[in-house]
Structure formats: structure tokens, C-alpha cells
């Protein structure tokens, strides 16, 4: 009797959302997997049957170049974001508690701003008639406007700008957790600031660094808007290729295959980070 | 003539996985009595209370209230109410809304609810606190609101889960007296779980000493304290001298000899700095400790180390190293049974 009521309780609370997720999240992904394993229909769309042909077609010079570029740009963006975020996080963490809120807020607020707007802003700055070029030619440093937009560099700048808060917050959280007493003890025992950092601060911040790098890498790898607005043809990434295949070329199987590949890489990256994190946690508490 | 029991536990047991928290409790409780379930942490007393309240289902056995089995009845339909250890007052409701909650759930009309809630708050001596929020109250006040909230529903049994453990000492003693007064006033059976033996002895009509999931002795406070059945109970409730019966012959004579283990309470040993009549055995005071109202002496006598409690006013001459005489009356000796496993 009580078990029966419990079952109804579960169904009433968890049921609707679980059902919704099943239909509008899991099933779509299932459809994508199926499409990835289907042949392309002549007029666009998907034909019947099962084939690994589309997955095989991924192994193509152009596509591979785009995939390789995506990984490369995502990696570069992640490292650059790390290089910028870490010192800032460290500087904030060293401030006294009540002075930390403002800098944190200031860094986090831009993450609430629409991605389109942030990337669009870089267009206004980097294009031929944009801020940078006007300043450079105006100051006489260059005679001709530089092609800054629609390059891989522009994409990286856009990515770093967009995802900086996602790197900063986890690192700040990890650094904040380090007791100041540890650092003072190390200095008391004769460690120079360099050694304090290398032996005490850096190792304790690794969890945050790993989290931040995972977030940023995963977000940048699958990005569409930034390379679309700032990259042009030379900055095309996986996301753009998928959109192109689905909405323009209408080669659903190829688009689906690329989507599956992207998901696999993302899940692997996150899974790997989690495994490393739990192993590091266990090592520390051992 | 004995009335039929109000609440009956028949071989109630509860296992969590392979751990048995309650291992077969059988007992009957009458209407109107104040019962304290006394035990150390981990003995299963809170689990037993939760079984009666309905938040756990027994692995075996039955719980019957007013003759009807409760086991299949969910907590919201049992005629028992529980005062939680952390009071569990609803933070988003006023004190009055808290107290009225149970009545609201049973669709009592608003006017009646207000009247009964006010009566309950007056009973616990908080007549003017209805419109405040729980966060504005002190610990003792919150405790009283929790009691009012439970009592207003006129349950057949009121369960209290260590209600006073979060209060400091002075407040605790005050609240003990309050609980007693309230129980006498409403005449409802109280089942009060505690680990504090002083609390149990002073509050209860009957005490059930619980250990490792079982009631090891149930009786009046006097019975529990003066006639403990086993060493476990003896040592749990008050200080004790546990002495093998054979070693008591200096005081009891040859007729007092025998097997087994006995208990002599420290305050029942007569002590003086001069020789006394009767079978007084000489001894030396090893050390003394002053507790304000009493003095505790550790005395070596007849090869035993005995703890003796003396009112401080009568402790003149009882200093470290002093020679003293001890007398133990036969009535002061309690024979203890074997401890249960």
C-alpha cells in the first residue's frame, strides 16, 4: 500500500520532466546517431538503410582540416584563457574577503551578455574600418588597413573574450580554498615566492585549473557563432561545418556524423577530466 | 483492575541492511503515564520512536495503539505526534500558523483552530508569541512551540526525541519541570527518549533502559536506581560500586557470602572518621573530591577500592590519607543478574 503510493509520487514528480527529457533530448540524439549511420538521399535528407559510409567520409582532407583547426583553435583559446585568467584569479584571491566581490562581479557580468553581441563587438573593432585599423592608420603605424577580421586569430580573440569567466571562476574557487596559513608557513620556512607558487599554490589549484580548462575547451570546440562571425572561410570550425551540411547542403548523414564525432570528443574530454579529478581527490585524501 | 494498555509493542524489531537497530522490544504503555526511554547513543531508542511515529516500518513485530495495529498506517494518519530533536518548526510560518498546522491538515474550522492554538500556546507558557516567526525565538521557546504544535492535536501518545539535549543546563532543568507540569495537565501518555539519566529519573513514572536494541529493564525510577537487574543498568544509572559477593563478608558476615556480583551505591556506604558500632571495617582514604553538595571519597578497605559519597556537611575529618570506618547495611546490597549479550 505504501509502496504503491510511493510509485505514484515518483511518477507525478519525476515523471513529466523525465518524459520530456526523453522525448526532446535523448530521442533527438538517437535520431542523430541513426542518421549518421544512414546513407544520404539523392535530393537531400536521409535514405533508408544502414551504412558506415558517412562516418568514412569524415576521413576527407577538407573535413579533417576543419576538425584539426577546431581542436587547434580550441586548445590555443584554452591556453590563452588560462594564461589570462590565472593571474587575475590569483590577484583576486589574495585580496581581503570584502574587496573580492566587486572584481569578481565585474569579471562575471560579461558572461551574462549575449554571445552574439560580444562577438559582434569584435567585428566593429577588428574590421577594415574598425577601431584598431583606424587607430593604426591614423597614428601612421600602418599605411593600409590590416586584414584582422576573418582570420583564425580573430576567432581565438573572440573565443578568449567570450569564455574568460568560465576559466576564471573555477580557478578562483580553488585558489580561494588554499589557507593563507599554508603560504605563510612556507615563507617562514624559507621558500621564495617562486617556490611557494610552484610547490604550494599551483598543485592546490590544479583541480580548478582542470575544471576551467575542461569547460573552456568543450565550449570552444563546439562553438558556432564566434567562428561564424569572426572567422569567415578561413576560420571555419566543426560547428560551422555541421550547420553548413545540415541547413545548406542538406547532407544530413554527414552533418549527423560530424555531430556524433563532436559529442564523442566532448564526452571523452569531460570523462577524462572527471577521472583525473577523482583520482587527484583520492590521492590527496589518502 | 488494569485498563487495557494504550500502546503495545510486540516483539518489534528493525534492521537496516544487516544491522539490527531494534532487536525485539515487547512492552505495554498505559494511558496517562510519563515514560522515559533511557539509553546511550546508538542503542536504538530514536529508531524505536520513529517506528512508533511511522517513519520506519518494523522488520517484524507489531505496534498497536488502542487495540488497532499501526504498522500499515502512514505517519500522517496515526494518532501520535512527535516532538523532533531539532524542533523542525516551519521557518516560513508564524508560531501560530505552526501550531495550527496539524489542525489545518485535519480541516478544523479557522475559528476553532485559533482558539485551540491559543490554548496550546498558553499551556506551554507562550501566550503572546503567536505572531512571531520561529527565527525570532530562543531555543527554549522554540522547544515549547514544538510541544504546543504536537499537543494541540490531542494525540493518544506524545513522542519526544531528546527534546532537551540542545538546551543548556539551567534551561534544561527548567524545561524538565515544564514538561512534567504539561503532561500532568493534559493527561496524555508521554514517551520521552533521552540519554540523560538524571532527566529520566526525575521526570518519568516509568523508565525503560535500552541497550543494543532491547529494553534491558523497565520499572519505576526508584526500582531502576535501587534495584538494577544487571551491571549494565547499574552502571548506566548513577555511580556504583560493583563488588563480587564473596568480598562482602567483612560487612555482611558469613551468611552474606555467596556467588555473583553485587552493587552498592556510594551514598549507601556509611563512613566516619571514628570507629562505629556493628560491622564497621577500617580503611584509608586514598583521595577526596569536592562537588559542592557532596564529597566523593575513594577508600581502600578490605582489599577493595570503594567510592563513597558523603554530604559535604558531614565530611569533616575525611581527608587524604585519613583512617576511616565503613559500614554497609544488608539492604544496601543489590544482587545483579548476568548481563545480557
Amino acid at each position, binding site marked *: 500500500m505504501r509502496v504503491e503510493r*510511493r510509485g505514484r*509520487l515518483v511518477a507525478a*514528480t*519525476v515523471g*513529466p*520532466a*523525465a518524459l520530456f*527529457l526523453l522525448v*526532446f*533530448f535523448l*530521442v*533527438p*540524439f538517437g*535520431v*542523430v546517431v541513426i542518421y549518421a549511420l544512414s546513407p544520404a538521399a539523392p535530393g537531400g535528407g536521409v535514405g533508408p538503410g544502414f551504412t558506415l559510409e558517412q562516418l568514412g567520409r569524415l576521413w576527407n582532407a577538407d573535413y579533417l582540416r576543419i576538425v584539426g583547426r577546431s581542436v587547434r583553435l580550441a586548445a590555443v583559446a584554452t591556453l590563452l584563457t588560462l594564461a*589570462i585568467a590565472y593571474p*587575475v584569479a590569483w590577484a583576486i584571491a589574495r585580496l581581503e574577503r570584502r574587496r573580492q566581490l566587486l572584481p569578481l562581479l565585474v*569579471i562575471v557580468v*560579461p558572461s*551574462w*551578455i*549575449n*554571445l*552574439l*553581441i*560580444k562577438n*559582434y*563587438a569584435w567585428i*566593429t573593432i577588428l574590421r577594415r*574600418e574598425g577601431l584598431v585599423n583606424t587607430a593604426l592608420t591614423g597614428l601612421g603605424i600602418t599605411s593600409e588597413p590590416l586584414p584582422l577580421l576573418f582570420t583564425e586569430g580573430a576567432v581565438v580573440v573572440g573565443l578568449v*573574450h567570450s569564455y*574568460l569567466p568560465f576559466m576564471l571562476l573555477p580557478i578562483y574557487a580553488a585558489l580561494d580554498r588554499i589557507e593563507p596559513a599554508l603560504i605563510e608557513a612556507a615563507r617562514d620556512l624559507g621558500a621564495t615566492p617562486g617556490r611557494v607558487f610552484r610547490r604550494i599554490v599551483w598543485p592546490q589549484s590544479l583541480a580548478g585549473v582542470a575544471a576551467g580548462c575542461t569547460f573552456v575547451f*568543450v565550449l570552444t*570546440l*563546439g562553438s*558556432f557563432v564566434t567562428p561564424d562571425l569572426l572567422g569567415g572561410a578561413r576560420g571555419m570550425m566543426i*560547428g560551422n561545418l555541421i*550547420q553548413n551540411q*545540415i*541547413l545548406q547542403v542538406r547532407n544530413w548523414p554527414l552533418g*549527423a556524423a560530424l*555531430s556524433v564525432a*563532436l559529442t564523442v570528443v*566532448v564526452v571523452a574530454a569531460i570523462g577524462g577530466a572527471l577521472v583525473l579529478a577523482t583520482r587527484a581527490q583520492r590521492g590527496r585524501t589518502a | 483492575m488494569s485498563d487495557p494498555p494504550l500502546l503495545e509493542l510486540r516483539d518489534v524489531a528493525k534492521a537496516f541492511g544487516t544491522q539490527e537497530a531494534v532487536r525485539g522490544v515487547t512492552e505495554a504503555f498505559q494511558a496517562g503515564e510519563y515514560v522515559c526511554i533511557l539509553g546511550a547513543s546508538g542503542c536504538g531508542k530514536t529508531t524505536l520512536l520513529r517506528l512508533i*511515529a511511522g517513519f520506519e516500518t518494523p522488520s517484524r513485530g507489531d505496534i498497536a495503539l488502542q487495540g488497532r495495529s499501526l504498522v500499515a498506517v502512514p*505517519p*500522517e494518519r496515526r494518532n501520535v505526534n*512527535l516532538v523532533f*530533536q531539532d524542533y*523542525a*518548526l*516551519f521557518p*516560513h510560518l508564524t508560531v501560530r500558523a505552526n501550531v495550527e*498546522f*496539524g489542525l489545518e*491538515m485535519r480541516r478544523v474550522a479557522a475559528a476553532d483552530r485559533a482558539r485551540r492554538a491559543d490554548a496550546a500556546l498558553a499551556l506551554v507558557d507562550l501566550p503572546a508569541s503567536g505572531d512571531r516567526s*520561529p527565527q525570532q525565538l530562543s531555543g527554549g521557546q*522554540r522547544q515549547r512551540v*514544538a510541544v504546543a504544535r504536537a499537543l494541540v*492535536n490531542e494525540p493518544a501518545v506524545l513522542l519526544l526525541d531528546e527534546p532537551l539535549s540542545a538546551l543548556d543546563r539551567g534551561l534544561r532543568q527548567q524545561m524538565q519541570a515544564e514538561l512534567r507540569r504539561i503532561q500532568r495537565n493534559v493527561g496524555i501518555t508521554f514517551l520521552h527518549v533521552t540519554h540523560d539519566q538524571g532527566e529520566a529519573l526525575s521526570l518519568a513514572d516509568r523508565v525503560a533502559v535500552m541497550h543494543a536494541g532491547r529494553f534491558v529493564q523497565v520499572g519505576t525510577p526508584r526500582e531502576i536506581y535501587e534495584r538494577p537487574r544487571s551491571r549494565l543498568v547499574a552502571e548506566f544509572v548513577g555511580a556504583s560500586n560493583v563488588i563480587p559477593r564473596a568480598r562482602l563478608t567483612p560487612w555482611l558476615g558469613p551468611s552474606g557470602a555467596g556467588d555473583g556480583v553485587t552493587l552498592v551505591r556510594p551514598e549507601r556506604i556509611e563512613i566516619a572518621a571514628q570507629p562505629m558500632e556493628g560491622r564497621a571495617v577500617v580503611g584509608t582514604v586514598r583521595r577526596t573530591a569536592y562537588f559542592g553538595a557532596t564529597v566523593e571519597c575513594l577508600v581502600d578497605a578490605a582489599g577493595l577500592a570503594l567510592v563513597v559519597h558523603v554530604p559535604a556537611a558531614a565530611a569533616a575529618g575525611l581527608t587524604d590519607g585519613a583512617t576511616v570506618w565503613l559500614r554497609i547495611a544488608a539492604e544496601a546490597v543489590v544482587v545483579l543478574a548476568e548481563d545480557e549479550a
Partner: protein
Amino acid sequence: MRPAARRALFGTVLAFVYAPILVVVVYSFNDSRLALAWQGFTLRWYRSLLASAEFRTALENTLVISLSATLLATALGTLLAVGIHFLRFPGRRALQALLYLPVVMPDIVMAVGLLALYVATHLTLGRMSVILAHVSFQISFVALVVGGRLQGFPVSLVEAARDLGAGPLAVLRRIVLPVIRPGIAAGAVVALTLSVDDFLITYFTAGAGASTLPIRIYAMVKRGVTPDVNALATLLLAFTIGVSLLALRGVGRRGGTEGAA
């Protein structure tokens, strides 16, 4: 770190993060078609924007879609979080893990999947297709925020309510939901901002008439840099920041009066 070095660091990073945004905002008031030379303060771009029928349609669509989706997602997500927290059932852990998937899944993959589903089921693309798509990722965020809020929820409150005669519905309505109200509000705010800001998934699943503000921005940007894009961007910016700051203050204030007995 020495104060001078710290100031230099903060200053540079701040400039990097805010300069582009300031440029957009400032130039939305610039009385000039060509982006750069400042030729006076004006509100004409805002006026032309607000007069534009396409803008008004996009605004209306955004409001209808985002508010409906947020309402639905908040209800579903809150119930889900409550069920997961208080009830034990087979598959509970799996469901908890599943909740993280929409958070980590790349937008493009979700967009493709949803479009594939719609095409395969012949669902007409319009506002409804977008609403359903938004809810599919909003639920997770709401459930995670509310679930986080439930972590410290004292079980004794639920037991006390049951002890006093409350059935499951009464427990939910009278005890659980009121106490976690700040968490629900926080979840709703997160869901709302995600929905208003969403571009890619909306782009794939919107029909011709369901254009939202982000889609308008994208279309205008692709056409070229014009001042009304600056105005639209600034409006959206103000809205998002405004809502988030309000929510932040609301959460802070209510957090102060919290606390179970």
C-alpha cells in the same frame, strides 16, 4: 603581488573584457552611419529600431517564447528536483547523471537533433517548436539550481509535516515549495536568461515567423555593421544585466531571512 602590478593587470584585463562592449554601447548613440567618427548624441537608432515591425515581431516572439518556456521548464524542473531529492527509486542516480547532459552537450548537436526530430515527425516549425526546444535544455538548469538549494533542506521539516497529518501534496505545497522559493526563483532566472539569449538552437528550430531577438541580431550582423545593430545589442544587454542584477539582489535579501528552526 605588488599593488602596482595588480592594478596594471586588472586594468588590462578589464579593458580587454569591456572595451568591445563599451564600443557597441557608445556607438549606439552615435549620430553617424559610418561607425567611427563621433558626430553627436542621438537616439534615432533606437527610434528606428522600435519603429521597425521586424523588431517588434522579434521582441514579441522572444517574450512569448521565453516566458512560456521558462514557466514550463521551471515547473517541470522543480518537480524533478524535489522528486529526486526526497524519493528513492531505481534509476535515481542515472537520472541525476542524465541531468548534466544538456549542460555539457554542444548547442549545435542539440540543435541538429531537435530539427531532425521535428522533420521526422513533420512538426511545423514555429513558436511551439522553439518553446519545446528551449524547455529541453532549461529543465536541467532549473533542476540543478533547485536541487542545489534542496541539499540543505532539513528532512525533519517534511517528517514534521507528515506527523501533523499532511499528505504528499500538502507537504509539497505548504512546506517544501515555500521554503525553497528563492531557489525556484533563481532557477527561473537562469532559465529565462538562457532562453532569451539562445541563438543556435532557436535558429535551427524556428519557423519563418518565429524570429527572436538574437536571430534578428544575427541577420542584421550578417548583412553588415549598422548602427541599429548597436542599438538592438545595447537593449538586449541592458535587459539581461538588469534581470540578473535584480535576481542577485533578490536572492541576497531573501537569503538573510532563511533558516529552519
